[in-house]
């Protein structure tokens, strides 16, 4: 019997009666079973402060405390600390209160004066184990849900993929005819008539633009078979930067790298992520056509509260405390207009339609990041300019 109570429990007694506190503590300390370390809080507010600062294994919660009464006490507690095991300990006996407390998230329910130390000890230890099992079940359920969502998404992508390659083939053939036709007319007519030249040029540009859309569609569709390997993102950024550097120099943009060495590896499809990186650099360059500075920064951290603002509320892919690798593209351009920010990832949205923009770059980038379980996000900086941020899950085998 003794073995199940071996672990020392850190108990927080939330209790407004000093006498009750003493009684309970004495019961715990003098019990031949279990080992306890207890602390007291007279109100919920006090309890929250203690829980934020220290680790506890279980809370023994009186429903009538200084700043709250009845089931509301449990509800408020559970909202704030949903993962903490709770045993309700109350002096007011009502027939259905116990069951209600259990449905509101308590692991057990005790009535003051109606139990001896062994029952209390057992209740506290069992609450910890019950909560652990419950959390594991919840975790498994969430994972199942996530897998189901991924399966549905994969099926959708399969349909899109099939459709896209069929459409691509049927559309590219007539486009090839149009483009060869224009080339022939250029050669055969050798026209100097401005209107003829303009007409032929317009046909050619229109066909090329249609071809660009098809290419985007195919890129999107080919996301069905990513080849993910553990990679160091810094190497990939170096390659992308080398590709773009000549363009930067032409428009007088300074490109700086601030890459954390010994970065953990991330599991990515190199070609696809390079496409995202190049797209983000090119976007930043467009925003700084009169010159400026682009800093590309990489660093590893634990995903924390302050990072949540960068993540779509519907996204469940990243959880607090998880190891992540972040890539920031920090520019000194004019920033992004508020009305554009909300639709910047929509397919076919572009502010560069006049110069041939199709509006698929960021939309595809987001699909690529989603299919890596990562996040892409854009925000304006208070001091001006914008930051595009990529967040990747760190590979579990990588070192941090």
């Amino acid at each position, binding site marked *: 019997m003794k073995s199940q109570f071996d672990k020392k429990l850190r108990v927080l007694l939330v209790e407004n009666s000093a006498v009750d506190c003493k009684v309970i503590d004495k019961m715990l300390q003098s019990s031949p079973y279990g080992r306890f370390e207890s602390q007291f809080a007279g109100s919920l507010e006090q309890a929250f402060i203690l829980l934020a600062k220290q680790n506890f294994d279980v809370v023994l919660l009186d429903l009538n405390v200084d700043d709250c009464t009845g089931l509301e006490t449990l509800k408020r507690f559970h909202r704030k600390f949903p993962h903490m095991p709770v045993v309700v300990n109350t002096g007011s006996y009502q027939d259905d209160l116990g069951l209600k407390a259990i449905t509101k998230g308590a692991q057990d329910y005790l009535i003051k004066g109606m139990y001896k130390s062994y029952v209390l000890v057992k209740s506290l230890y069992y609450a910890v184990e019950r909560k652990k099992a419950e959390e594991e079940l919840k975790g498994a359920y969430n994972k199942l849900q996530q897998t189901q969502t991924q399966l549905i998404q994969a099926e959708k992508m399969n349909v899109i993929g099939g459709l896209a*390659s069929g459409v*691509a*083939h049927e559309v*590219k*053939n*007539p*486009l*090839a*005819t*149009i*483009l*060869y*036709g224009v*080339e*022939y007319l250029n*050669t*055969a007519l050798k026209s100097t008539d401005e209107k003829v030249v303009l007409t032929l040029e317009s046909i050619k540009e229109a*066909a090329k633009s249609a*071809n660009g859309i098809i*290419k985007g569609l*195919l890129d999107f569709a080919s996301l069905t078979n990513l080849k993910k390997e553990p990679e160091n993102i810094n190497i990939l950024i170096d390659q992308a930067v080398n590709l773009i550097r000549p363009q930067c120099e032409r428009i007088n943009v300074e490109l700086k790298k601030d890459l954390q060495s010994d970065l953990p590896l991330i599991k990515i499809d190199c070609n696809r992520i390079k496409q995202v990186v190049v797209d983000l650099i090119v976007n930043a360059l467009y925003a700084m056509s009169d010159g400026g500075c682009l800093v590309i920064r990489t660093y590893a951290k634990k995903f924390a509260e302050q990072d949540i603002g960068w993540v779509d509320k519907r996204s469940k892919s990243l959880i607090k405390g998880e190891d992540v690798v972040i890539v920031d593209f920090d520019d000194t351009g004019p920033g992004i207009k508020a009305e554009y920010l909300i639709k910047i990832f929509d397919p076919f949205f572009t502010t560069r339609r006049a110069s041939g923009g199709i509006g698929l770059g960021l939309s595809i980038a987001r699909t690529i990041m989603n299919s890596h379980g990562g996040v892409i996000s854009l925000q304006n900086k208070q001091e001006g300019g914008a930051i595009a941020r990529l967040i990747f899950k760190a590979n579990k085998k990588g070192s941090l």
Partner: protein
Amino acid sequence: MKKRKVLVIDDERGFTKMVKLNLEAAGDYEVKIQNNPLDALQTAIEFIPDVILLDIIMPDLEGPDVVYQFKNNDLLKDVPVIFITANITKEEVDAQEGYIGGHAFLAKPGTIEELIACIEKQIKHLQ
């Protein structure tokens, strides 16, 4: 200079016409069209081309099956074949330096300049 004989096998009638017009306008080419892949072998035997431009996805008989017929024919087995197809992109072809599985490839749509460069390269290969 003797004109290079080019056979274009593709079910896209408009496309084959444009290939013929452009290559013949460029001067040094004699171009024959075959839009029905089932008749490709017979046309090729009569024409004996220097190079063959061949589509991949065609009704009744696909490009690779047409190549198989040519490779089993003594008159045609050494004639270079260029696959010209909408199934791949220019980037994919470039990434493989123009060859996929040992065959020369061109992506649709492309430019006449690319087409001529590829034809000349294949003919030189043979000489």
